[in-house]
Each structure stands twice: as C-alpha cells, then as structure tokens.
C-alpha cells in the first residue's frame, strides 16, 4: 500500500505544482511573477511526462555499462527534452516582451497594461 503511494508520488507532485502555478498566474499582478507561474506549470508537465515512463524496478535507458534489468521508456524522455527546449524559447520571448512593455508603459502591473479594449 505504501509502495503504491510512493510510486504515485510524482503524480501528486505534478498536481500540486500545477495548482500552485495556476494560483500564481491568477493572483499575482507583476508580469514577471506571472511568467514565473507559467514556468512552474511547464516544469510540472515535464515532470508528468518523465514520470509516465517509469517501469517497475527499471534502470535509466543508457547502454554504457548498464546493470541488468528492465529499462525505463526513453521516448518520453525525448519528449520532455523537447518540451524543456520549447519552454526556454517561450520564456526568453515572454521575458523580452515584459522588458519592452516596461520600457513603453512604465509599469509591470498587469492590470495597468490594458490599452487594448473592446
């Protein structure tokens, strides 16, 4: 029973991180903090992807000097890596947008950045 709970621990962490990330995105007013919340959610989804690949008692999927036993799935790890790269590019672009908005509007408060209406 406890071992099943332990195996499900990564998935609990994913849910907690997603809820935290959403809470940050919805409640903070500074643009940079909202982007931090987005980054938290991205980490949560990456953790979910990697945790999906675990098989019982498996080792890392590398052939160099590997001990015997089943291997965890490598394809989900490739998916996670791609997602991390996309996350880096997205964060870089969004932070640059935040810098330009600060320079043009003079504020980072998301409730004051509302020139587009209707």
């Amino acid at each position, binding site marked *: 029973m406890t071992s099943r709970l332990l195996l499900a621990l990564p998935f609990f962490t994913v849910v907690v991180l997603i809820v935290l990330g959403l809470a940050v995105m919805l409640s903070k007013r500074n*643009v940079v903090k909202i982007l931090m919340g987005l980054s938290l959610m991205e980490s949560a989804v990456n953790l979910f*992807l990697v945790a*999906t690949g675990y098989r019982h008692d498996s080792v890392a999927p590398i052939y160099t000097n590997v001990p015997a036993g089943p291997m965890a799935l490598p*394809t989900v790890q490739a998916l996670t890596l791609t997602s991390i790269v996309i996350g880096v590019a*997205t964060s870089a*672009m*969004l932070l640059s947008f935040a810098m330009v*908005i600060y320079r*043009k*509007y003079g504020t980072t408060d998301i409730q004051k950045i509302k020139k587009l209406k209707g």
Partner: protein
Amino acid sequence: MDTFVMRHLPALLIAVPLLAAFLMPIVGGAGRVVRNAWVVLGALATSAVGLALAWKVLAAGTVLYVFGAAAPHVPLPMDSGGIPIRIIFQVDALSALMVVIASLSSLGITIYSLAAESRQSGLETFYAMLFLLVAGVLGMVSTGDLFNFFVFLEISSLAGAALVAYRVDNGVAVEAGLKYALLSTLGALAVLTAIGILIGQYNALNLATLASRMQFTTLDKIALVLLAVPLAMKCGAVPMHFWTPDAYATAPSSVTAFLVVSSQASLYGLFRILFSLYGDLVHFSWATFGWFLIVLGVLSMFVGVTMAIPQKDVKRLMAYHAVSQTGYMLLGVGVGLAVLGNADALAQYGKTAMAGGLFHIINHAMYKGLLFLTAGAVFYRTGTRNLNKLGGLGHDMPWTMVFFMIGALAIAGVPPFNGFASKLLIYESVFRFSPFLSIVAMIVSILTLASFVKVFHSMFLGPRRAEFAAVREVPVPMLAGMALLAVFVVAAGLAPQPFVDRLIQPAVEALVDRAGYIAAILGGN
C-alpha cells in the same frame, strides 16, 4: 513522375521554408535587393512544393513519408515487430487541402509584405519568423505523429507571437503578443499533458497506431477534453476568443492574413483528433461531441458578428468577423460529426454539411486574407485604422477598393463569389438537420453584410478628405499579393463545382474514413 523532388516532397515541404528561414540573417546582410530576392525565391519554392504535394496526393492517394528510414514509403521496419517507430508524415486529402491553403496564402502575403513592410527595420528577423511560421503551419497539417503536431503547433505559436509584436507601436502590439503567447503556451501545456496521458496508456505516438489501440477509457476522455479545448481556443472559437481581436489588429497585415491560416491549421488538428483518432469510439457521446462543435459554432457566429458591429478599428472588426466565420466551419463539420453514426443521414446531408464546412475553410482563408491585406493597404497609405477618420479613399485607391468589394461580397455570401458557394452547402444541409440553426446562420450572414456595407461606406465612399490629399494607390507588390487571393475568390465563386469535386469531396471522404487512415500505416489490421 518519380523524380528526386517528387519522391521527397513531404520532407522538402518542411525543409525548404526552414532553409529559407535559417539562411535569412546571412543573406539579408548582403543588402535589400538580395534579401528580397531570397524571400521571393523561398516563397515560390515553398508554394511550388506544397502545390506539387497536393497534386500528388489528389492524383495517387495518401502519401506517406517516414523520416530517417531505409525507404520513405515503408512505415513498418522489418525488425520492429509491426510497430511504426519513426516520425511519419501522412498526407491524405484533408491535409492536401490545408497544404493548398497554406501555399497559396503564404505566396500572396509574402509578395505583399515586400512592399508593405519595406519601411520597417530589422526585416531579416521578420522574414525569418515568417518562414518559420509557414514551416510550422505546413508541418502541423501534414504530420501523422501526435507529438510532432505539438512541436509544430508551438513553433507556429511562438513565431506568430513574435510577428504580432513586431511593430512595437508604443507597446500596444507587444501587449497583444504577450497575451497571444501566454494563452498559446497554456493551451500547448494542456495538449502536452494529453499526449503524456495517451503515451502512458498505449506506448505510441503515431496517430494511426494510437487510433488502432484506442479504447476510450476515462483517461482517454480526459485526454480528449485536454486536446479539444486548447485547439478550439487556438482557432478562435467563442468562449476563448479574446486573444483574436488584439492579436489580429496589431500584427502587420500580411502576418494577420497568415495568422488566419494558422488558426485554421489548429481547426484541422481539432478535426483530425475528433474524426481520425477517436472517431467511431465516441459511441454514446456521438451526439455530445457533435453538439459540442455545433454549440461552439453557433456561439462564435453570433458573438463574433454582434461584437464586430460597434468596432471602430477596421482590423479589429475584421478579426471579430474571422471569429464569426470560424463558427460556420465548426457548424458544418459539427453537423457531420453529430450524424456520423447514422449512415443514411450521413449520406443525405452529413457529408454535404462537412463539405460546406471544409470548403468554407479555404474560402475564408482567401477572402479574409484579402480583406486584411486591403486594410493593410489603407493603413500603409493613410497611417490610421480608425473608421471615423477614414473616408473618400475610393477616388485615389481604385484597385484597393475593388479588392475590398470582392472580399466584402464574398464574406457576406453574395453570389458569384466563393462565400456563397460554401454557405449554400452549409445552409441546405444544416436545414435538414435542424432548421433553427440554418436560420441563425442566415441571420448572421445578413448582419455580416450590414457590417461590411458600413465599413465600405466609411472607408471608400464620400468626398475626398483634406488630410488624405496625398494618398495614391499602393505599390505593385501589394497589388500583386491581393490579386492572387482575389483571383481565387472569383474563380471559386464562378465555378465552385470543380473545386468541390476534386478538392473538397476527397477531403470529406478522408476525414470520415478512420479505418482507411489506420490502414494506410498499419496495412489493413
């Protein structure tokens, strides 16, 4: 025609725009003329490859391309035990339709942007991003692998957001880009979670393999919701359409015309997931999912057009109309999905409804692109998008006025333009499904016409205004780009039957035929 190029068309479809994008900073450093020449070369090459691929698919059936294998058309390697293990591009008739839309549209807008953006700086980055956006959209519609679809979705979202914010415009465009990027990223995270759920259950990423192993458990239902809602958001369906007016209004006009195509690529993704991945398994929820699309469609149509009427910014108004027209596509294909289990209803009006929806996709890309390009032409000469300040431009911009009239009559569904052809298919088939929906569609069409009569009057009719005395017609590249789209609008309106028979009907058949989609890769299992 088994030449080198024809054999490797799907790979060239992605590789050519990527090559154009990657070499742009280097080539662009050599001067304006060299850069423009490279841009035109890249656009022509991409469109040629796209149209050639579509022609090959419509003539010979689904085209498969396996990346990195021993031969491009063998999806099941000998030593894999019957599982397709590589990224496979599966271009069937529906993908061919979307590739045609993307190719024609990208050619038109790239030629247009040569003149329209010539006053901006940093154009190497602009064109690199534009080619990345084109590559992303082309990849989204041709791939047969779910994670590859996610990657291309993200590529096109990021490139699109960068292009929306390109004209900084005192920060307004950057604000729109920020909103667009935030919403796209959230949606993409949901899609990625759904992909994680599906690979955890079935250990496959290939759409055909997933479809053949799909059992529609509770987790699959969660994955369906997590896939369908973000894709509906990306195409601007109503409860989630708030990014559309901001992003479309502040982006450069050539980019807006292509963002319309990008939204339709997400619509393609939604249809592919609903029909080919889940398909017949949605037994008891047949009515539910079809009605989900129908409700989204009706809401989009109605909310889009009512919010468009009081707008003063012409591109914002057109963006709301884009939301409204997306409703027509959702309505048509939703009616098809709702009767998919019922064979004779499908044959009588379901397939016609779907044909109307799919024909509307290509028509909308063409006439909405044309309208955005004319709005951009007006902005290029007068410097404003505010309808209260414009007026009397018909005297000095006759060609722009003619193109605007063609686009406006097409969107309102007036014969002999292409909007009428697709809307007629939708009206008559949806009427047999539910008369009320058809009447709502017709009312929305009338309101669209009213809205565009108002815009036409404000922009082009009336006496010349003093501040626009120096306004002349726009340069030739912009006229050429608009003319390319206008020719399609008129041609598909005067003779829609060949388009429907050769382009749309095969797409409808491909969408409905889930077993055929699976068999193309797994070979009839």
